[in-house]
């Protein structure tokens, strides 16, 4: 699976918003926010097959 860009000219703005939403949080709170965000985004994707593929893709790259 190769994931192409879908954010166009907004990619820098979107990345900045993601950083801003974590502003001022402890590491623990940030992890909680990330978990919450993933649950929300999964529901927004709304396609179990697609979500499965994305989860496998994320796991396929060796982790730290």
């Amino acid at each position: 699976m190769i994931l192409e860009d879908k954010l166009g000219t907004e990619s820098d703005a979107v990345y900045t918003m993601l950083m801003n939403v974590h502003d001022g949080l402890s590491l623990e709170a940030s992890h909680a926010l990330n978990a919450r965000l993933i649950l929300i985004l999964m529901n927004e994707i709304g396609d179990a097959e697609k979500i499965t593929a994305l989860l496998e893709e994320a796991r396929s790259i060796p982790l730290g």
Partner: protein
Amino acid sequence: MAYDYAPFPYVVPPGLTATEPRHPVAIVGAGPIGLAMAIDLAGHGIKSVVLDDNNVVSVGSRAICWAKRTLEIFDRLGVGDRMLAKGVTWKVGRLFHGSNEVYSFDLLPEDGHKYPAFINLQQYYVEQYLVERTRDFPDHIDLRFLNKVTDHRDHGDHVMLTIETPDGPYTLEAGYYIAAEGAGSPTRNRMKLPFEGQTFEEHFLIVDVELPHSPFSTEDPERWFWFAPPFHPGQSALLHKQPDNIYRIDLQLGPDTDPKTEATEEKVIPRIKAIIGDMAFRLDWMSVYKFRCAKLDRFVHGRVLFVGDSAHVVSPFGARGGNGGIQDVDNLGWKLAAVLNGAPATLLDSYDEERTHGSAENILNSARATNFMTPKSEIETLFRNETLILAGKHPFARKLINSGRLSQPCSLAGMALQSGDHPMVGQSLTDMPMETGWLIERIKGQFTLLTLDDSVWPDLDDIRIVPLPKSDQSAAHYGSKGAFLIRPDDHICAYFNAPDTGALAAALARATGRNQ
């Protein structure tokens, strides 16, 4: 070889012995922006006096990346060819994470432009070429070294300047006062104008070294950027070539370093050896920086006008400082000339509107790049590292990596001087080959009608007609029907799908501030 910083001669100014006639324009600061301003005004027939407290060019390479649009402006000012000949043309950039190459990019894959996407050229050469170019306008440019402006007063119809020289102080009057003094602008401080924005806590070390051969794996000059390189753990690094076999190295140092101890040969030499390996080198210049992104709310204050770093400062990622300043000059020159020739002074409000917008865009881009490069929490570092890891495989993640979004001219769409809503209106010209030479050479700082088809326009006062040769390239970019009205600064301000002198006159009136 090290650059020879020969001082420019000081000449006793006439104002020390007798009152000088009022100057149309005084430019304070003879850096690249002030000098370009004087040359641009001279090209429009406007006389200026340029006052600088110093008498040598920039010490150290400082601004080195000159973007395509800047080179096109310098072409009009008469130094573009010389800069291109001396400068290092590069277009391939490589980005590394640790010791792995994540991706490479080619800045301008398309041919058919006079100037490349970027050249690298030390600021001292740019200033030298500009100073030499001012000598071609002895009747229009009065360049005074060791003339330090210590005070100014806006009297409504002119500005009075107080100037210190080695022979004592004098005063002179100017119709307009342009502050081009750099980031520390004494004029801005004197006027107590707020200059607010974001300060970054990171220190960066900037070093120029002369090397006997290329440190890149190829002889072609490239731009190499590392996140967390093996030779500089946890930080970022940049390597770039300049003329004379000088290489620029930027190293992120972290927020808790002491600039005084970092900028010593003892500390710097081992760092350089870690990057370039065991190669003999000469240390040419070094400096430790912290960065700010800040701007004035307004660049026009009565008869006092701010350009370049006096008006706005950015972090260097994206090369938006020097390039942004030259675009200020490009935008202001023809407008100020028009006002001095009788156009309404409100035309200068459009300089304020257009360039505060341009500088805000530059600040946004350079602040985002700086934030990406200097994560300020564990979670930001985590996101940054995962982006870099994903980028090895996924194009979407490559696009999120931000080591500087390189300077581009901003769009002026929707602003006061532009007419209509054609999608090209507001954009700067994209260069095209002509039968001989290049499109950007044909505008010559004048309003120009660029015609795309064979429709016949009547002869027009004040507007030159330039037919665009038909080609696949020109059709793909500009289309093949109608005509564009081009401003003296090469921006498109109106489109007409058929000859219409009434509509053209209205667009021209609007673009010159006579009918808004």
